[in-house]
């Protein structure tokens, strides 16, 4: 059993390792080539795409402004349909609800569709500790589980792996897999996983899914997948548990249809995912199949306190992963370096809220603020601005590194005194220009090793612009 501890405080070391991992670097090439062009194409094909993004943002803003009302309405509808809603203030509470249900129905195994909330509450390790075997049924999650890892991406959990690594895992884990079976095509890996998973679906006592949206109007939970495993996870077992966080709510089915149009395009460049599955309550008398029990666990885990604060906009996130797909830092180091469940720009804003800025403090700092994330976010979350908010909090709480603080203090002392600044910079630049005159640049500079370790630094031309300008004006 593995209980995961965030390694976000070691972000720099994690990044260092990641940059030196050739297999990872090879795999990360797929993020750039796989997602960006597809999203672009899908967005370009739809003239109203930008307007849809505005609508998606507005729907989420409206819902968040009235979240209490919509949660109540949602609970009422689920109950009317014969289901149960469990509010879980913390990760611990949510895990307890799951484990209690499993114990009550005597469950040995639980078939799971892909759920990032399950990762957030680190459910699998705790289930195992309670004697329940979790079986991940999403291909990516299944591979992750075989490897004892965490997903490195919120949509494509194994984007950090190459096909040959996965083949190796399968050969080691699947007993009776003939050595000469060809697993060189992704389809053959999928077929192999399917064959294994079928048996487990049929044996599972409880099925669990996440939710992409919860609909207040109807009490429906909705998942989007491309493998159809989610459908099996929720229809075959006798109990269906939906594990979702409170901000997944939207008011109506009409709203969902708008959100779905931006979600798939932003995530994978599809017009719509292969499966969009709606579930409302347990099996009714006339239904031919479906679970006998239907539970929804609504996790808060710090979100309601985000509602009233400066990170509220983050609660609009629909987990499409476009921000990380377009992030140069994510492309360089991959998702595991971030050290917790949520990587990339959305994680750099969300993780400090959920595990504390003292642990996740590097993440909002490790951004160039290039703004590409914000430019593709389907619900227009101002990610750089929110990361900057975290930097302000760290600065206020003296959490930013001492070298950064003293450097800033030194520089701002001069910048706030223009006369002194002009004098000091003039002297300084002349000296530096003299020192760098023969080469025009420096191969190393004190205090700038982070730069000059890998790049030259241009020497100043000579006198400052302001000094030269004034000298010319006098002439």
């Amino acid at each position, binding site marked *: 059993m593995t209980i995961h501890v965030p390694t976000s405080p070691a972000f*720099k070391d994690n*990044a*260092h390792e990641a*940059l030196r991992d050739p297999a990872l670097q090879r795999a990360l090439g797929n993020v750039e080539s796989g997602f960006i062009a597809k999203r672009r194409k899908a967005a370009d094909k739809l003239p109203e795409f930008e307007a849809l993004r505005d609508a998606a943002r507005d729907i989420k803003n409206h819902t968040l402004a009235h979240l209490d009302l919509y949660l109540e309405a949602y609970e009422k509808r689920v109950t009317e349909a014969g289901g149960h809603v469990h509010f879980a203030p913390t990760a611990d509470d949510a895990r307890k609800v799951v484990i209690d249900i499993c114990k009550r129905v005597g469950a040995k195994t639980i078939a799971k569709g892909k759920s990032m909330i399950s990762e957030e509450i680190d459910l699998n390790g705790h289930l195992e500790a309670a004697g329940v075997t979790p079986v991940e049924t999403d291909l990516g999650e299944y591979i992750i589980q075989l490897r004892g890892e965490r997903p490195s991406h919120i949509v494509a959990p194994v984007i950090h792996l190459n096909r040959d690594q996965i083949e190796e895992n399968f050969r080691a884990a699947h007993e009776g897999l003939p050595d000469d079976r060809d697993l060189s095509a992704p389809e053959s890996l999928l077929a192999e996983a399917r064959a294994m998973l079928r048996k487990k679906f049929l044996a599972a006592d409880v099925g669990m899914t996440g939710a992409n949206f919860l609909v207040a109007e109807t009490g429906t939970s909705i998942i989007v997948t491309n493998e159809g495993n989610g459908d099996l996870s929720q229809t075959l077992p006798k109990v269906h548990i939906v594990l979702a966080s409170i901000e997944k709510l939207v008011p109506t089915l009409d709203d969902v249809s708008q959100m779905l149009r931006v979600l798939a395009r932003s995530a994978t460049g599809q017009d719509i995912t292969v499966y969009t599955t709606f579930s409302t309550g347990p099996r009714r008398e006339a239904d031919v199949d479906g679970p006998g029990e239907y539970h929804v666990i609504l996790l808060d885990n710090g979100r309601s306190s985000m509602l009233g604060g400066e990170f509220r906009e983050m609660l609009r996130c629909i987990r499409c992963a476009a921000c990380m797909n377009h992030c*140069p*830092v994510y*492309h*360089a*180091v991959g998702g595991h370096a971030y050290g917790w469940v949520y990587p990339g720009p959305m994680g750099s804003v969300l993780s400090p809220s959920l595990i504390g800025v003292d642990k996740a403090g590097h993440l909002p*700092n490790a*951004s*160039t*603020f*290039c*703004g*590409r994330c914000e*430019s593709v976010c389907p619900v227009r979350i101002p990610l750089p601005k929110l990361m*900057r908010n975290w*930097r*302000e909090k*760290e*600065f206020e709480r003296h959490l*930013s590194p001492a070298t*950064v603080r003293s450097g*800033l203090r030194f*520089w*701002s002392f*001069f*910048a*706030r005194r*223009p*006369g002194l*600044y*002009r004098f000091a*910079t003039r002297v*300084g*630049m002349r000296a530096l220009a003299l020192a760098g*005159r*023969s*080469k*025009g*640049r420096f191969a190393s500079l004190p205090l700038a*090793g*982070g*730069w000059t*370790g*890998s*790049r*030259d*630094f*241009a*020497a*100043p*031309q000579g006198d*400052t*612009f*302001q000094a*030269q*300008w*004034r000298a010319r004006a006098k002439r």
Partner: protein
Amino acid sequence: MVHTHEPRPRVGLFATCLVDLIRPSIGFAAAKLIEESGCEVVVPSQTCCGQPAFNSGDRATARALALQAIDAFQGVDYVVAPSGSCAGQLKKHYPELFAGEPDLARRAEAFSGKVHELVSFLVDVRGMSAVKARFDGAVTYHDSCAGLRELGIKTQPRKLLDSVEGLSVCEMKDPDVCCGFGGTFSVKYGEISDAIVSKKVDNISASNAPTLLAGDLGCLMNMAGKLQRLGRPVKARHVAEVLAGMGDEPAIGEPARR
């Protein structure tokens, strides 16, 4: 050029601290271009726009420097900076710094309304469509992030470059992807910054253009520094220098001629 009979607008040139300290020739190139667009140029006493403080979470310093700049640039019709990043700070982020304080916010907004990045000022505000300059050879142009995504600068520099005699633009792959500079990021997370700029310079080299241009000195120093460390022959210059006919200055990080 076009506006000879109207009174000439007064433009306060915000040189930016990097240009002021490291490469004054960009400031002179900017002044020349602004004058060619029919404006008068003044250079009020200035230090830094405060972006390093703002992006490091030091809001108090960022505010003090913003007020200092707003005061220094009173009485001009426009404030123009040869940097998308600094212009973005002046134009987009100054008002944010005073949100909730109506008097200061109003001042910040009045100031921000006058701010423009150099090349977009020439094209979008002054209607310039060509420059009188010559530069022999192919160039490749990097779109710096803040200029591109905060200010929408993409076509303007290419339009003016097209009018430079002897010059052709060879686009690199992903010209709109970050070079990894990110201000203090380049030092605090030097390894990651290096990984990003390494990809960038590969794209630059693959364009086969002997010259790299961009509108931000920070990004240019980052890319030039990497190209030079790798011994690649590409020369880096600010787009204003080429547009102003000053493309014969020693390139960024190259020694002065004796």
